[in-house]
């Protein structure tokens, strides 16, 4: 895991350096009264003219100690900036993941068990539509319909700032703010889970051990619950870690559209303002999350599948 | 000089284990195995699954690395040969596989399947190649037209014939047949077995016939080696093995063969029971302290057994 992260960090640093403009150009964008010489002086001051390897060494050394430097735009340490928002993103991600599974697993089970039925056809159609729909289109649509037209849910932010923290109302309001972003994300994320589970069930129900179960007189619902599902859920469980990748990509759009103060929106904002330190820190964190997710998948698979556990 | 000679052949695999991912050698799958095949003979290698008989075949084909020992083909050590000369030599050794369903490429037609070894070793014009493939196809009893068909259009027995035609294309000296009929139905099995006998006589082939079925081996082979835990426990002619088995494991295998006469059921059952009991008791006579099969010793000129 460590070598992967190291390689990733070099790549990120290098790519970020290759982006047109740097933190200084970003910080003084739209301020024509700052001359080129002044900008050059600031660059020299912050070490932005050193060879990239030196800059990288400085950056990674600090990063290991949890210091990602100073945000030029927000004028505060990056770590502090991230700490304020990471909670929101984790909330959003976990909620999206839970809702995704709550929707996808029953759908996959129904479609797999009654293949070819109208319910199956409906689910498969839904699946194709959700796969084909771009998240930003769908999220905008949700925002428009439920946020503006019907006005059922708040259309932006993570909580109403007028409400006092720690009260029940505060929690309730947070949840209300989560509904639209979570639904927009999870309704589209169900695709892989439904598809996997459906295929897996169709395959599993032909297996010999399912025949054995029926021959033992196990009732049909238990055949599916105890035998088919247990076997079919394996790849889904293993896929959990990989879903994190999808969540990270999705959060960028969702948070931006719903102006939800999380890491995804910060990412877009930082790119716009060339806030180099924040961008690299964010990419590094998402990269680490993907690697951790992959490892998580491995660990989960080891836990649920006894055949791998020993091997 | 024997056509093929295995001297102390040992095949060992490794596995990665422990948190440091060290590679550890597993117990040998084939353990200092020595045997000889003479020109024109049909040698039966018999044993239960996991005894190392297929690994031995793969080692002869050069598909498994030897940890120790030599494989001499016409007196030359195959494992020491240079790759290019070895490849040339390997056209003399061909193999027939167990499963006729998976050993033929489903996307190739019969012509391409049979011509593949020819293309690897011989430069033939298309017309020559076609003629040769047609000859082979007819020789194995299939219609000359069938060379344009694909494997799924044939039955199991026919597919096995295609596999045999492919193996014969280069006129090999030695044919290794790894359980060639165990995936086939009884009546189809008879066809393939008859046919293998015919080609053996016609081409003066030497054959290593690997099987778990003592009935088939008795019908097909001249000499038999019984394998257990990677080693030979007994070797001899048909008469030696079936009429005068010396090793308990051989006796056990023979007793396990289903009895075709329903009247002798009870007798057979008692025999099995007796031999199993003996097998438990007299273990140390046949195995050393680590459970390894002891070295074979000579009983008669043709008959060897692993006894202390």
């Amino acid at each position: 895991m460590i070598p992967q992260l190291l390689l990733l960090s070099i790549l990120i640093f290098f790519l970020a350096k290759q982006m047109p403009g740097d933190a200084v150009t970003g910080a003084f964008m739209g301020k024509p009264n700052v001359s080129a010489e002044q900008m050059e002086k600031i660059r020299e001051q912050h070490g932005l003219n050193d060879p990239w390897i030196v800059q990288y060494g400085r950056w990674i050394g600090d990063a290991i100690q949890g210091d990602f430097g100073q945000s030029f735009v927000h004028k505060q340490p990056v770590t502090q900036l991230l700490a304020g928002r990471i909670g929101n993103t984790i909330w959003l991600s976990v909620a999206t993941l839970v809702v995704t599974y709550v929707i996808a697993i029953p759908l996959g089970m129904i479609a797999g068990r009654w293949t070819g039925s109208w319910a199956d056809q409906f689910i498969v159609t839904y699946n194709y539509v959700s796969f084909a729909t771009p998240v930003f289109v769908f999220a905008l649509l949700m925002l428009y319909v439920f946020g503006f037209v019907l006005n059922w849910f708040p259309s932006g932010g993570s909580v109403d700032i007028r409400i006092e923290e720690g009260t029940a109302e505060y929690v309730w309001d947070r949840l209300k703010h989560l509904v639209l972003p979570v639904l927009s994300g999870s309704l589209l994320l169900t695709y892989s889970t439904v598809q996997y589970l459906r295929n897996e069930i169709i395959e599993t129900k032909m297996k010999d051990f399912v025949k054995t179960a029926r021959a033992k007189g196990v009732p049909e619902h238990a055949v599916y619950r105890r035998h088919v599902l247990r076997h079919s859920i394996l790849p889904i469980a293993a896929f959990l870690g990989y879903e994190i990748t999808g969540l990270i990509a999705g959060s960028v759009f969702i948070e931006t559209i719903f102006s939800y103060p999380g890491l995804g929106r910060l990412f877009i904002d930082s790119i716009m303002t060339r806030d180099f330190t924040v961008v690299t820190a964010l990419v590094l964190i998402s990269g680490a999350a993907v690697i951790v997710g992959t490892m998580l998948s491995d660990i989960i698979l080891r836990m649920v599948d006894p055949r791998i556990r020993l091997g | 000089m024997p056509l093929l000679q295995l001297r102390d052949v040992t095949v060992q695999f490794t596995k990665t284990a422990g948190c440091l991912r060290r590679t550890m050698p597993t117990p040998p799958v084939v353990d200092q195995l020595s045997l000889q095949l003479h020109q024109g003979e049909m040698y039966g290698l018999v044993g239960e699954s996991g005894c190392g008989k297929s690994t031995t075949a793969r080692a002869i084909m050069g598909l498994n690395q030897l940890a120790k020992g030599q494989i001499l083909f016409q007196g030359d050590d195959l494992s020491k040969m240079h790759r290019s000369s070895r490849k040339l030599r390997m056209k003399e050794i061909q193999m027939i596989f167990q499963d006729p369903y998976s050993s033929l490429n489903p996307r190739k037609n019969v012509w391409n399947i049979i011509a593949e070894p020819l293309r690897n070793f011989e430069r033939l014009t298309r017309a020559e190649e076609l003629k040769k493939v047609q000859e082979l196809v007819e020789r194995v009893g299939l219609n000359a037209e069938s060379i344009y068909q694909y494997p799924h259009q044939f039955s199991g027995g026919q597919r096995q014939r295609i596999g045999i035609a492919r193996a014969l294309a280069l006129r090999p000296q030695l044919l290794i047949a790894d359980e060639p009929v165990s995936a086939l139905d009884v009546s189809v099995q008879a066809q393939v077995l008859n046919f293998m006998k015919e080609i053996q006589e016609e081409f003066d082939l030497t054959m290593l016939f690997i099987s778990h079925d003592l009935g088939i081996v008795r019908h097909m082979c001249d000499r038999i080696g019984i394998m257990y835990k990677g080693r030979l426990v007994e070797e001899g002619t048909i008469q030696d093995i079936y009429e005068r088995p010396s090793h308990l494991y051989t006796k056990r295998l023979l007793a396990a063969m289903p009895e075709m006469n329903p009247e002798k059921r009870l007798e057979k059952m008692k025999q099995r029971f007796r031999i199993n009991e003996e097998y438990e008791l007299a273990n140390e006579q046949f195995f050393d302290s680590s459970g390894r099969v002891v070295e074979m010793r000579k009983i008669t000129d043709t008959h060897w057994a692993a006894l202390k």
Partner: protein
Amino acid sequence: MLTIHNLRTSFRIHDEFHPAVDGISLTIHKNEVLAIVGESGCGKSALALSILGLHPPERTKIEGTIEFQGQNLLQLSTAELNQIRGKRLAMIFQDPMTALHPLMIIGRQIEEPMKYHLTLSTKEKKQRALQLLERVGIHNNEQVYQQYPHELSGGMRQRVLIAMALACDPELLIADEPTTALDVTIQAQIMELMKELQRQSQAGILLITHDLGVVAEMADRVAVMYAGEIVELAPIHTLFHNPLHPYTRSLLHSLPSSFGQKGRLHVIEGMVPAIEHLKRSGCRFAPRIPWISNELHEVNPVLHEIAPQHFVRCVCHQHFYLPTERIGDEINASITAT
């Protein structure tokens, strides 16, 4: 105990139903081992699965009656069938590698039929599962109880499958190729075990196999199937000593072990027809014995009771000689002529 009458099981192939089992009538008695023998595609496994109602209903059509202790199994709902399956009627499948659930410990799998058919406490179930393991010759039963199928050898798994089938003391056991996937020595052990258990329990066994050796060792009566039909039905001794139907005789002659000497093995001409191409009138074996002329077959072959308990389909067997037999007969004839 179990009476099958005129059973016809058809599978849908390209939107048409083709019978794989075509008009089978059989009776299995208590304390009897009835073997059904035939080559792949003859319909023997389809027959077994029909009895237990394990064919996918959307692709199968089953006609006729299967009467088990006064109930027609084909008329029962799945729920009613589940009262019988695993309790009074149990099955042992062919491949012990795939017939066990890979993610469930052995103990749970053996306890499962008890859970649905018997009223036992958790402790009693475990006790019974351990006893069953012991009965099928697994002496380290406490350990095996906790293990997963992949940790056991093929022979052990087959024993577990048998233990599972015996969980509720069934009256009839259907064993579909129970030893095919096993090594010879293990096969011998499993055969002995099944015989022993059958003696103890007095259950009937329907043994489905392609291996005449297994039949000779285990069966009391034998039904030989060809192309969806029973061609010969006889007590075991009759079948091996006086086989009549051409197919039975050909099959016995194509086995190497029945000789001991090294002649050519008998080869049956042609191939087993695929069920969608099968001609459904006349003697189905006729194309494979072309030297018997058409007039010597029945137009609509039926099973004839040649001797008590010995049934043979078609009359062609009266004129049938195996090529090898015929040569012998011709020699005999020429000797008598001179």
